[in-house]
């Protein structure tokens, strides 16, 4: 307890270079780090998908062994959900939210850096399993007792458990940060019901994360204890319920579904009004339906378990709640359509992706409503029909919206526009390929093709549509590579973007592209919804907060949070410690020692962090 006298190294001062990124607490830089990392993981998960589709292209192939196939689909699902879609959402939260609410940073800049580095640690941990004894192989939901050490020896599942725990820490830290930021850091006049819809959906998503992640944390602790310390949580021979894991997982897992889609809905709700030159139709209803989705998302989890045998009462109740939750989702779709109705629509690439999102999400939503009937679901459970559904909502929904968001905010982030011609080719390629890939899965699914089989006989009648799906998948891969090409070339030599290339409505378009480090020279005073639009066309000035000219603000009174080593160090401690836990039952004392060293590093970092002032007192004038 004598850590008070810890020698605290000098604050890092690296304006450029690798260290400036490692020690950064700037929400914009962290957003870029999140985005780039998530896109790399997206490509990794996509590569796994290509492998799967190559194996299934024809009956009776043996490109991969059944064991590796199990690892491929598990890693594909886990990677896409936890390492691609969620952090890509986090990238937008980081970059865009402070700009939209008129803040200079998030509420806890160092905690924000900690979230990113911890996320990276989790991503590395999960993927290291490929080279350290085999990847996890029990599906992204890792049903126990299938994941217990009796049925699943080896370290794959341990890697899965620990990396999800690490990612949970990262997600929770980020969610706390964004809840506080959105509640407390809004510019004067930015009332809750004036917030941009992307900010609203981020707020709701963060609340869901805060409440949903602890459930999976506990389930993973129980599974970890079963595997490492021989407890009995998921041991049916000791009287344990084999359904407990499924309940805990889906109590987390269904809110998680909305964690994946709500940010996408927020992005689309920004893009459609902008390119329709109309305010969002029924703004309060869109907000409210988001809140209702988040609330009802807690009451539908057992629709993932209709075939478990919970009985007719439970199945009926969950069927009804599932049908009901389609209502607020449908409301949003009508709001988007009504926003476009009689607008002067401009089909820029971002808008194309956003409209594509609506189209594909409706298809995914409809097959979702089909699943909500428990009797019908019994036919569809664990078939490719479900694979079709979930890819329509996660690819057609989340990924399309995230790509739309990249096209939309790219000029704000890089200062250059993405190429529109390549962008339109990109959209049509992705949109068509997406349908070629996933639509036939409805047919193979209803023809009885089960999920997660590594191959099939040619007399099952699944040959044609599997071949079509695989062809589509490779087209889709090409589409994503085209996107990557467009992003890289545009970032280097694209057309230079103005501050407001789309004639935007929200505060982020009122500052230069890319924004200065301090975002706003003067904090604006918001007078209504769509404040920037009102300023441009309604003559409603965003009166800046009194206090000095812009010049003054830049040089004297803006105190940005300073860089810090400690978030990075704390994450390293977590990474090292988790490796210790991983090997506790294999090499007992080494595992314990390594876990202890990791915990110690994290502990020291947290002490140093809490004793380190946000700003050094001798940095510039007191404010």
């Amino acid at each position: 307890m004598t850590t008070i006298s810890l020698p605290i190294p000098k604050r890092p001062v690296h304006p450029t270079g690798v260290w400036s990124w490692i020690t950064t607490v700037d929400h914009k830089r962290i957003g870029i780090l999140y985005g780039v990392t998530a896109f790399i993981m997206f490509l990794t998960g996509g590569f796994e998908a290509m492998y799967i589709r190559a194996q299934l292209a024809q009956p009776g192939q043996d490109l991969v062994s059944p064991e590796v196939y199990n690892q491929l689909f598990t890693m594909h699902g886990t990677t896409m959900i936890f390492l691609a879609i969620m952090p890509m959402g986090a990238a937008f939260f980081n970059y865009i939210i402070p700009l939209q609410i008129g803040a200079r940073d998030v509420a806890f800049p160092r905690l924000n850096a900690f979230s990113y580095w911890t996320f990276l640690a989790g991503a590395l941990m999960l993927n290291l399993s490929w080279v350290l004894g085999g990847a996890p192989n029990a599906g992204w939901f890792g049903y126990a007792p299938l994941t217990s050490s009796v049925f699943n020896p080896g370290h794959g599942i341990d890697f899965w458990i620990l990396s999800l725990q690490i990612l949970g820490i990262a997600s929770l830290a980020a969610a706390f940060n964004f809840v506080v930021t959105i509640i407390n850091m809004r510019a004067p006049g930015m009332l809750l019901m004036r917030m941009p819809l992307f900010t609203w959906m981020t707020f709701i998503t963060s609340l869901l994360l805060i409440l949903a992640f602890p459930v999976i944390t506990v389930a993973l602790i129980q599974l970890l204890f079963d595997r490492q310390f021989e407890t009995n949580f998921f041991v049916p021979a000791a009287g344990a319920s084999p359904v407990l894991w499924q309940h805990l997982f889906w109590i987390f897992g269904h809110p998680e579904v909305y964690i994946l889609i709500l940010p996408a809905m927020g992005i689309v709700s920004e893009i459609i009004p902008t390119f329709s030159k109309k305010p969002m139709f029924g703004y309060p209803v869109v907000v409210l339906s988001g809140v209702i989705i988040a609330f009802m998302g807690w009451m539908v989890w057992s629709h993932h378990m209709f075939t478990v045998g919970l009985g007719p009462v439970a199945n009926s109740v969950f069927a009804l709640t599932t049908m009901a939750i389609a209502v607020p989702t449908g409301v949003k779709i009508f709001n988007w359509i009504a926003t476009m109705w009689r607008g002067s629509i401009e089909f820029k690439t971002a808008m194309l992706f956003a409209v594509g999102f609506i189209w594909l999400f409706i298809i995914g939503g409809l097959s979702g409503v089909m699943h909500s009937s428990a009797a019908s679901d019994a036919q569809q459970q664990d078939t490719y029909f479900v694979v079709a559904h979930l890819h329509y909502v996660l690819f057609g929904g989340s990924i399309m919206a995230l790509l739309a968001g990249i096209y939309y905010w790219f000029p704000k982030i890089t200062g250059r526009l993405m190429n529109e011609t390549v962008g339109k080719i990109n959209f049509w390629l992705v949109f068509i390929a997406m349908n070629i890939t996933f639509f036939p899965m409805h047919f193979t699914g209803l023809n009885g093709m089960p999920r997660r089989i590594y191959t099939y006989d040619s007399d099952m009648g699944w040959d044609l549509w599997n071949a079509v799906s695989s062809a589509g998948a490779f087209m889709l891969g090409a589409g994503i590579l085209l996107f990557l090409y467009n992003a890289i070339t545009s970032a280097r030599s694209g057309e230079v973007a103005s501050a407001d290339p789309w004639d935007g409505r929200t505060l982020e378009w009122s500052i230069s592209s890319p924004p200065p480090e301090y975002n706003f020279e003067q904090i604006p005073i918001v007078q209504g919804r769509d404040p920037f639009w009102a300023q441009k066309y309604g003559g409603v000035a965003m009166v800046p907060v009194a206090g000095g000219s812009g010049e003054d603000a830049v040089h004297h009174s803006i105190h940005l949070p300073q860089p810090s080593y400690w978030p990075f160090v704390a994450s390293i401690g977590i990474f090292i410690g988790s490796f210790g836990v991983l090997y506790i039952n294999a090499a007992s004392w080494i595992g314990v020692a390594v876990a202890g060293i990791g915990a110690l590093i994290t502990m020291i970092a947290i002490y140093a962090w809490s004793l380190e002032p946000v700003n050094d007192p001798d940095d510039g004038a007191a404010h």
Partner: protein
Amino acid sequence: MAEATAAIHGEHEETSTGLNNRKLLMWAFLGSDCMFFGTLIATYVVYQGKSIKGPYPIDVFSIPVTSVSTFVLLMSSMSMVLAYAALRRGNLSSFRIWIFSTAILGITFLGFQVFEFRDFVHEGLTPKTNLFGSTFFTLTGLHGAHVTLGVIWLLSLGFHSFKGGMTPDKHLEVDLAALYWHFVDVVWIIIFTVVYLFGVFPGIN
């Protein structure tokens, strides 16, 4: 940034709601922790009476002993309040007395828990024995881990005061620790009721 600096010094700060950022963060964390303990307690309740072999709760629990440790933990909440009040008055020596008392009461509670765990192991109940053992040790152990972190936090604040780190304007530092401490205390009341009292209640097992 100015707001964040103000937060560090516990001064008045300008946020959209007037609530302090860190205090809001602590409430959000406690909301999350509610779900954490909620899930653990739910698992315990679901598996209550499902163990296929002993020892069972009624064989190992000693309500009088656990009542004493519960009383100790409850009293620590009171001394926590007194520590906070002392710091706000600017009475540093009184602050030290109460903050260290709180930590010592917490350590005493942990001592009881260690003693109890050892006792249970002697009676043949380990996390490996049956469902009761797995759920009981995981739930109370993770609660104990929360108490341990709290004790480290309280001791840090106490020692920090000798370095001149605790002044009345830093009351937020103690306020945050107190929120956490009271929460952990309330969770124990639920655990004591659901696990211990219901555990020896005839008809439940």
